[in-house]
């Protein structure tokens, strides 16, 4: 995140949908508000890329203050019941103080994936093709960063620290080095491709 950069003008939590977490508790999306979050969409039976995503999120967990929450939303609500999510959390040592695992209806999954701009498609009863995206939300649910692909998440660690900077009183995060060889300049592109009034960095 660059100095002066702000989040999207909208909150993901305005979707208004209600999910179930790994404890079987009803979770309106807005209950995630109040602290910054890193959110990814996976499914627990995915053996190809989702383990890489989860491993990277565990690395983020280790490198960021405890106020940064980590959210895994299932793309496969049919099979990822709350029980299954609890089992998955236990297997991967995803503790409830940092981790929230959610499952919801197909329509709610579709809406959330759509607003996070995650492309996916069911290939069969057991398999989904999907984009791997990590999204950082601020405490209000605004998108402050989006990283597509399976690259390491150092930027997200930096942003996560910056968002959680108040409670830990550590030195401010180092500025992101300028993209030199080739880089997307994200803020105008990812968040509002309609090209409305541009927000400065």
């Amino acid at each position, binding site marked *: 995140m660059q100095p002066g950069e702000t989040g999207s003008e909208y909150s993901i939590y305005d979707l208004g949908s209600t999910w179930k977490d790994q404890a079987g508790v009803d979770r309106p999306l807005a209950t995630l508000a109040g602290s910054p979050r890193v959110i990814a969409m996976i499914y627990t039976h995915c053996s190809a890329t989702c383990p890489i995503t989860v491993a990277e999120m565990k690395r983020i967990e280790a490198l960021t203050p405890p106020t940064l929450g980590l959210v895994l939303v299932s793309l496969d609500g049919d099979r990822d019941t709350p029980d299954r999510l609890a089992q998955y959390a236990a297997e991967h040592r995803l503790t409830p103080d940092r981790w929230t695992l959610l499952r919801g209806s197909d329509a709610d999954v579709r809406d959330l994936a759509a607003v996070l701009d995650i492309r996916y498609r069911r290939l069969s009863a057991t398999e989904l093709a999907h984009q791997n995206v990590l999204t950082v939300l601020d405490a209000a649910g605004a998108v402050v960063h989006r990283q597509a692909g399976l690259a390491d998440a150092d930027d997200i660690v930096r942003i996560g620290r910056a968002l959680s900077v108040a409670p830990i009183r550590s030195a401010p995060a180092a500025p992101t080095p*300028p*993209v*030199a*060889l*080739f*880089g*997307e*300049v994200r803020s*105008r*592109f990812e968040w509002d*491709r*309609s*090209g409305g009034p*541009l927000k400065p960095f």
Partner: protein
Amino acid sequence: MLPFHLSAPRTPMARMLLELALVVLALLAIVGLAGCGAPVDAAEANAASGVPIRTPSSEVIGEEVAVLTTAPAVPAPITRTHATKVIVNLDVIEQTMRLADGVEYNMWTFGGSVPGSFIRVREGDQVELRLKNAANSTMPHNIDLHAVTGPGGGAKSSLTLPGGESVFTFAALNPGLYVYHCATSPVPMHMANGMYGMILVEPKAGLPKVDREYYVMQSEFYTTGAFGAKGLQTLDMQKGIDERPTYVVFNGSVGALTGEKALQAKVGERVRLFVGDAGPNLTSSFHVIGEIFDNVYQEGGTSATQHNVQTTLIPAGGSAIVEFGVEKAGDLILVDHSIFRAFNKGALGILHVSGPDDAKVFASIKGLGVGGE
């Protein structure tokens, strides 16, 4: 070792002169060291290997907005001697434009013209390309610049819906004259509808000084109607697949470089043409009738690899830089020497040379108009 022997000075004047000489030497040494001490340019350091691994400039000073020009104009040579951040604002505009007299076509353009705006940057510059797609466009568009080292030449980061903007940044690592084009699927349709242009990455040392620089780009149009058929024409995909263009033109339309729009030069001037071939299909046999290219930078590279050339081959999606001095007044004719294209499909332009005539260069002695019975 110094090329002269230093002995103890015998007079105050001599001593003073020697001291002065030593100071000058020291200053020279400092300047030289400063040169050596500056961050080593990896591109140059590696150039000796033959295949350099290039790195972006370590020092990018300041920021400027690129001046873009519409063909045949070319932005002025760059006089800067350092790398800077260059912002390129390129707007995609779809509009109905003239293809030939009485013939119109819904062109898709970079900057409102076919070919698209000419971009000029300097080797080592950090370019920020801002691609805007007009809100009333009917299609998404993107840009692949052959000057870019990066995914899709920028295309992967620049798919832009109508009303949207994409921004990406790249280091202008390699100097040369490069084609850019839209690479949105179906790419042949976007290119056949006019989405191409050129970017010059000027070498650090600049190009030799000339009096005139022009931007000429050859391309084809595949229309449902025959050559010259009036009215609004649209893409004939089958003609494209068969590589049977209806039109082959310079600078986007029949007659873009003739009559009042002819290129101009004066006798005794040096002319440089930045020539591109957008295709989509054909290779150009670029020739200027009545002139010989003194220098050809083949395929848009940075070395004048050939001299005294009649016709140079320009690949589709490629370019060439040609330079020549004009010695004779009159009209020089730009053609694709695959000559049906010039005669029947539009690939024709004029460079009008004005000034005093020199009969020694050329003069008719006997013929239809001169000295006949």
